[in-house]
């Protein structure tokens, strides 16, 4: 029996169940409830927003402002405070509203959270899950639309999760909060309204495991986040040409699942990686590098990376659509490595 839920509600349900299970789980961020200290809302135990897109709605009324903390607009202050909370025994889940705001707060991740355990000889634990949001597609322009999960993924001591489906979002969120490490949980804002089956029960999905969303024989497509749906669309199209495509949803960007990707490439001999990040020094280029190193003899052609161009995200709808990797771009790149397979 299907139990369809929205992607955003799957995340909300995970946060709710994590908070229910462990009183050390604390949410903090900007307007994750909204309306703090507003008397007419307080009288009725109401919030105003429940997050800028409503992802955390209902949690403040249920758990109170002690556990769902609206912060001032002080990204460095509250993100680094979350590190202090984690180092002293809580399980904070700070929300960095848009991943583009990391410039204000990067030291919390880069300078402090990721290094404390190592610098302190293994004596610190930083169980912190940073919720943040990436992705183009809603005309939010250059400072609210970037995809920076790869930047976090290049830092030792940080795990990075990018879910594509409501089912994965819930299970990965619960795993992230259980982790005794820093996890960046990056949500694509254009997926919040997508629907899928999400069990009501508490369940976890291991961090670091990719998921083969479609099996195939001739070509491997590795995707990150919403690029999964581009990959699946490409697979449908190529099936008509008798090209069988395997689509791997990476799910975890750091540490990414080398075994699943390598095994698939050994079977198909061809690889395309679709990553909405800018094209250099990103997750796609890292995958291409590792696969070249570990499975060179199995490759029947060059590895293709389909990424955003090396530009900021543009505002105008036509330009933004041109920016995001899409089926046509992937098919175009695929041509070079599958021409011999087409019937």
């Amino acid at each position, binding site marked *: 029996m299907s139990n369809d839920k929205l992607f955003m509600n799957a995340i909300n349900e995970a946060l709710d169940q994590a908070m229910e299970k462990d009183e050390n789980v*604390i949410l903090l961020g900007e307007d994750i409830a909204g309306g703090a*200290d507003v008397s007419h809302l307080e009288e009725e135990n109401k919030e105003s927003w429940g997050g800028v897109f409503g992802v955390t709605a209902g949690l403040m009324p249920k758990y109170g402002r*002690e*556990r769902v*903390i609206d*912060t*001032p607009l*002080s990204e*460095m*202050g*509250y*993100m*680094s*405070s*979350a*590190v*202090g*909370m*984690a*180092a*002293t*025994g*809580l399980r*904070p889940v700070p929300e960095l509203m848009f991943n583009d705001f990391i410039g204000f707060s990067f*030291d*919390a991740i880069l*300078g*402090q959270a990721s290094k*404390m*355990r*190592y*610098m*302190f*000889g*293994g*004596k*610190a*634990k*930083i*169980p912190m899950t940073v919720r943040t949001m990436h992705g183009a597609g809603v005309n939010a322009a250059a400072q609210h639309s970037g995809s920076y999960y790869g930047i976090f993924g290049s830092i*030792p*001591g940080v*795990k990075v999760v990018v879910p594509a489906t409501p089912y994965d979002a819930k299970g990965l969120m619960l795993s992230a909060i259980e982790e*005794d*490490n820093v996890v960046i949980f990056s949500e694509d804002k254009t997926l919040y309204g997508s629907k899928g089956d999400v069990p009501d029960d508490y369940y976890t999905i291991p961090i670091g495991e990719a998921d083969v969303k479609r099996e195939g024989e001739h070509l491997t497509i590795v995707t990150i986040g919403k690029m999964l749906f581009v990959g699946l669309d490409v697979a449908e199209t190529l099936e008509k040409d008798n090209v069988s495509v395997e689509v791997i949803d990476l799910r975890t960007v750091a540490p990414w699942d080398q075994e699943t990707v390598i095994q698939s490439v050994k079977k198909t001999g061809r690889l395309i990686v679709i990553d909405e990040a800018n094209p250099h020094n990103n997750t796609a280029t890292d995958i291409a590098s590792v696969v070249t190193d570990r499975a060179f003899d199995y490759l029947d052609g060059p590895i293709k990376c389909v990424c955003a161009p090396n530009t900021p995200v543009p505002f105008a709808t036509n330009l933004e659509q041109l920016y995001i990797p899409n089926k046509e771009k992937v098919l175009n790149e695929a041509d070079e490595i599958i021409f011999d397979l087409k019937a």
Partner: protein
Amino acid sequence: MAKEENKAMPESMKDVEASFKELVDLDVKTSTETRVEDLTKDASTSMYKNMENIRNFEENAKRYFAAGEIPGFVHLYAGEEAIAAGVCAHLSDDDFITSTHRGHGHCVAKGGDLNGMMAEIFGRSDGLGKGKGGSMHIADIDKGILGANGMVGGGFGLATGAAMRNKYKKNGKVVVCFFGDGAANEGVFHECLNMAAIWDLPIIFVNENNFYAEATPQWYASASNTIAERAAAYSMPGVRVNGKDIVAVHDIAGKAIERARNGEGPTLIECVTYRMYGHFEGDEQSYKAQSGEEKEWAEVDPLDVFREYTIENGLMTEEELDEIREQSKKDIEAAVSYAKESPEPSPESLYKDVFAD
């Protein structure tokens, strides 16, 4: 709509003509006015021992750095002992502190293991960080030390978060955030003082104003004459104290810590001090005055100040003080031997402790 009782911003504007002595003396509290009758012999002994341990630790760090036996960068706390020792006298292991670039003193005063500390700055496997942190990252979480910090201002958020945890747990514990005059000009100073104030957090921001951020004077880099006066912008008490006078520091800090424990919120304490040595070892300190008021202030030794006070007030005899000094020298020499005998970290330890399992 709380805090309507806030006073308007003080009228005091920066006096650009102030002499060095005027900058030191501005609104500063000393033990002549804060003297506490109940400063016991035990407390005095413990504080003096910490001051001696810090001084001797730093003198040895200086010596072995110069000899090439301690690698990397070393930022010495010598000259500022009264602050760490005076403040930490009020804290227990489960009160947290965050420390600074110049962090050895805080770690000693908070009970950090001397052997483990020395081995750490020598880069050895028995160091508190297994030789992987070094001088700028000395930490001992079991003793409530959230680490020295290589990032200037890096402690503000860690301390504020630890205080948020204490408030949530309603455990009566406090957090002390030590920071320098340089860190007071980081944006996160503003963010965290503001958050601490709006949430009445159990935290004490202890500024160590040694008048130089690296090689740049505070009177150049700060738009206000004092750090303490900035507290007014965050609706919290701001107090300026002679940071070479441990009795005054101990008294002022005690009041602020008690206030925090009682849920009455944060305090900003500016301790006016001076560092005996450079920003780092090897710094030629060409920026420091070689005569006049600044030189006179530089030569005030906080250990001598406290020795005189305890003798004058009948708390300790000169012989007792000398005995503590000699014992401290032996303890630190033992820490140096411990560090030298400790093996280098194993090659495989390079890859360990990146993640918790």
